[in-house]
């Protein structure tokens, strides 16, 4: 009986969550042409060397250096890296949103594109999780925190969305 009650409660919770998402709906106003025009991978260039230990090595070679200074520097750098990571995930989700919008409103079947989009999404989130784990291990000596794969995935998503526009009928004709 307890198992039945737990199952019912879980089912109702799942439905409540899904209906709330359904009712709040995807806000197409978040994915605008202005955002697309301003989007650039270059804004994430600092991520590639934020956690580079050579800066720390240089600082350690300076007179008056204490380990606490280095720790504070790297902690700050990690905080900034995480902020960049959040922005990167947000931009990726924006691109995914645009891709899904184009799929739904397309006048042609977009099964292959949708499949590719899902695959990219899963890979991207897996990489984000791996990066978060690396960041957590960074203070205990993990040195290889590399965001280049993520940036490449973001660029690939942008290219994919662009390909859909170039290959098929324009959105204006989809109406």
């Amino acid at each position, binding site marked *: 009986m307890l198992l039945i009650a737990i199952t019912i409660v879980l*089912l109702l919770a799942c439905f409540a969550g899904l209906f709330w998402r359904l009712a709040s709906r995807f806000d197409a106003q978040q994915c605008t042409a202005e955002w697309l025009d301003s989007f650039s991978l270059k804004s994430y260039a600092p991520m590639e060397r934020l956690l580079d230990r050579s800066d720390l090595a240089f600082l350690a070679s300076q007179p008056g250096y204490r380990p606490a200074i280095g720790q504070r520097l790297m902690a700050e750098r990690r905080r900034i890296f995480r902020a960049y990571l959040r922005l990167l995930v947000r931009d990726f989700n924006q691109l995914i949103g645009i891709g899904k919008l*184009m799929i*739904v*409103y397309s006048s042609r079947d977009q099964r292959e594109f949708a499949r590719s989009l899902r695959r990219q999404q899963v890979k991207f989130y897996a990489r984000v999780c791996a990066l978060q784990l690396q960041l957590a291990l960074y203070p205990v000596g993990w040195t290889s925190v590399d965001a280049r794969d993520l940036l490449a995935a973001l660029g690939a998503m942008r290219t994919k969305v662009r390909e859909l526009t170039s290959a098929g009928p324009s959105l204006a004709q*989809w109406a």
Partner: protein
Amino acid sequence: MHQLPIEQQVLEVAQIAVLLALCAKLWWSGLYKIYVFFFIYLLLEFFQSLIPVFVPLNGALYLESYVVSQALILCSYALVVLELYSIILRDLEGIASMARRYIQITLALAIVLSLLPLALEKTPNTWTGYLFIFERPILTSLVVLILLITGFLVYYPVPIGRNAIVYLMGYATYFIERATTIFLNNLGHYWNRSLSSLEMSFSVICLMFWLFCLNRRGEEKRVVVGHQWNPGDEQRLRAQLDAINASLLRSARK
């Protein structure tokens, strides 16, 4: 009907009244032309709810009437769910084949999941027992189907009207409740009066929810490019899609 407990008599009257009102509202608003199977389902429920009024509960005729009417209603459950999704996904060529494939897979998964608890249920020895043994898996598979397809609708920005969300909420709640009460009955918990009263209460609540929340405007709120139901939103979305397209083409030429 005088053989029913007092609370069930009250609920029976309420159910008949709300069913009549809901059928009248669907007819008056023209929604019966869009949701044909749902309208048929309501009519079947209405005729079934009249059975206790005219037929003694302790007779074989009542049993046979209930079993036959419930079997018809079971068929209509599946049809109303499939009708709703076919309306939601209509004219969406971009995801048509994907949606078809997804529904096929979720239907198969739903059927498998719903058959698993059969091992726990007692072997029936009455007509209603056999009916419940069939009904519970059908309802459970519909619950799983609604859950998984709603997930699909959440993942893709499929335009969906308020009426469709209201239908889905009503179906999900009612099917979960009915599947649970029948499952408890099939496990051997014959709390007939309590479960029947609970079920009738839920039925009345769902019907009242549909009565108050379904209307013609719930169809018109749907934002779909190419339709005339909401011209302001349609134009805004069309302009936005055009702007996104132009931006992507500009960057492709760089």
